[in-house]
């Protein structure tokens, strides 16, 4: 089959003496090169009263949806102006497609009306949404507390093997990343301190600075932030996709509470693992500081570690570990909450994961601030 070299599309709209408008389509009209312009037709129609529109497509070459879209608009224009359309000049295929497009009239209430709401109205709507979301957050926390108390009495239904797996995933498997980040954090703290302390010739106090900072606050905080990105997002994605695949529905209709079966083991796992990861992170941070002290500041390893041990008290360690445990609970709650609130589509699961990380990091930082204040007031 030989393809005729087709000339580019041409559209001419002419007005006859008897008030009819003839639309002439010629050449090749392909959707890649644009639609015939409806404005040209509109312009001619605006010139004066028109009795009918007819088409001349004798020289029309290739055509596709480009022409069809133009014709649909042309027919709509004609309908609005009560002008007859004579379709006999169109190719058979185009005529049939046009009829198909018009076969089912537009449903009145199908199009959602996009009304540009007033600012006050939008503000009000947002406030109501926020209130509703806050209530659903509170409701979740309330039901979690009930489920945890049932778990504490040994009545909650979950599988111990699930808990063991979660402990492994959110404890042991997080060690490499926690090692890397806390070691580097200790290193950074040591550098920051060294610059200041060198001017006084008191570089040995870098050990105090790194030790106390890591153990009291930074160890728990940075481990919490790592786990928020790692576990919080994972929990939200797991629960969100279980919602999409109706796995959570299946639990509920089996009279198995998703709260007990899915959320409780996650909260317990993080509450158990975060203190251990925090302790480990503290140690890695001190090692990072020692690395700088020994290689750059000329301190001996033993000297550095003794100085650290002197500076850090048991109450610092217990306080830090306690904070880590609280952060763990906050991460697990935020992750599961956003997962359970997720919509039933794959993009909603993505949003849930994002929102879980944001929520957990905000919760951790707020808690960190509260702890700083309370510990200061208590003189710890």
């Amino acid at each position, binding site marked *: 089959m030989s393809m005729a070299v087709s000339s580019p599309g041409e559209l001419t709209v002419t007005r006859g003496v008897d008030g009819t408008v003839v639309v002439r389509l010629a050449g090749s009209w392909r959707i890649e090169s644009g639609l015939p312009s409806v404005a040209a037709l509109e312009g001619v129609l605006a010139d004066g009263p028109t009795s009918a529109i007819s088409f001349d497509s004798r020289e029309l070459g290739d055509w596709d949806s480009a022409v069809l879209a133009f014709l649909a608009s042309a027919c709509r224009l004609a309908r609005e102006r009560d002008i007859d359309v004579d379709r006999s000049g169109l190719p058979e295929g185009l005529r049939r497609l046009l009829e198909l497009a018009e076969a089912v009239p537009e449903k009145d209430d199908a199009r959602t009306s996009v009304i540009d709401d007033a600012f006050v109205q939008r503000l009000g709507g947002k406030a109501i949404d926020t209130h509703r979301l806050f209530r659903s957050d509170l409701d979740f926390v309330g039901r979690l507390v009930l489920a945890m108390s049932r778990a504490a009495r040994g009545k909650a*239904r979950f599988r111990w093997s699930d808990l063991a797996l979660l402990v492994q995933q959110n404890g042991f498997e997080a060690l490499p990343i926690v090692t890397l980040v806390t070691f580097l954090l200790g290193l950074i703290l040591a550098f920051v301190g060294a610059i200041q302390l060198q001017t006084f010739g008191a570089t040995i106090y870098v050990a105090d600075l790194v030790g106390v900072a890591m153990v009291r606050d930074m160890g728990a905080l940075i481990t919490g932030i790592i786990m928020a990105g790692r576990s919080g997002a994972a929990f939200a994605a797991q629960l969100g996709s279980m919602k999409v695949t109706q796995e959570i*529905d*299946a*639990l*509920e*209709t*089996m*009279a198995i509470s998703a709260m007990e079966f899915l959320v409780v083991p996650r909260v317990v796992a993080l509450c158990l693992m975060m203190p251990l990861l925090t302790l480990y992170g503290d140690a890695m941070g001190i090692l990072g500081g020692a690395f700088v002290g020994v290689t750059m500041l000329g301190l001996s390893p033993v000297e550095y570690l003794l100085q650290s041990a002197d500076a850090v008290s048991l109450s610092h360690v217990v306080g830090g570990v306690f904070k880590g445990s609280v952060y763990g609970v906050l991460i697990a709650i935020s992750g599961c909450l956003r997962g359970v609130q997720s919509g039933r589509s794959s993009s909603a699961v993505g949003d849930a994961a994002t929102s879980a990380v944001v929520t957990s990091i905000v919760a951790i930082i707020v808690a960190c601030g509260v702890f700083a204040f309370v510990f200061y007031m208590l003189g710890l």
Partner: protein
Amino acid sequence: MEARAVVAESTPAITVRNLTMAYGDFTLQRDLDFTIEAGDIFVIMGGSGCGKSTLLRHLIGLNEPARGEILYGTESFTKAAPERRSEMLRRIGVLYQSGALWSSMTLAENVALPLGEFTELDQSEIAEVAALKLALVGLAGFEDYYPADISGGMQKRAGLARAMALDPDILFFDEPGAGLDPISARLLDDLIIELRDSLGATIVIVTHELASIFAIGTNSVFLDAESRTMIAHGPPVELRDQSQNERVRRFLRRGES
């Protein structure tokens, strides 16, 4: 004394009374009123988007009615306290559209979970029952497979094995034939009839597959998207041949009235 002609009417398995379903301000279906008799294979049918699956979600307690109530036997499911509702839920089984198997568990664990939760069986007995239920749906030997490792039709059958784990009185099916080839769909239909006959279960199916509807449905309700209520109630074959309603006849005859 003359004996009264008492028709021994057995209590229906499910009674839907004056049910209105809504999402926020949008009413999906209103004034649904019908009963599902014990032993029926009851079909909920209607065009896409008419609220069939939502009605199923109401029947199994995943959505709350805007108005009206649902009774299991003579007891209100809608008004039951949460603990009582959990007990009532144990008498039903649901096969979800996609199977909804718990993806972190093997097939045997999926079936075993409800057994472990709600029976006094020990581990080896549970494993035995789980293997039996899987064998009933033709999945013997697949106990240790994960849901992701098997085909869609097999997932559906495994979902059915899980739904039957506690020998429920009522089994719900959401679009059982969707995504299955004609032969698998037919086999599933046969399995449904077999289950009804051998277990004596009542079966409620949401579907729009005509072949299934006529092959297995003993009674049905037709939900209409336009008038937003039920417009026919009766055995599917009768509705096809005798319904006064044009839309019902057209639906059941694939567009030919």
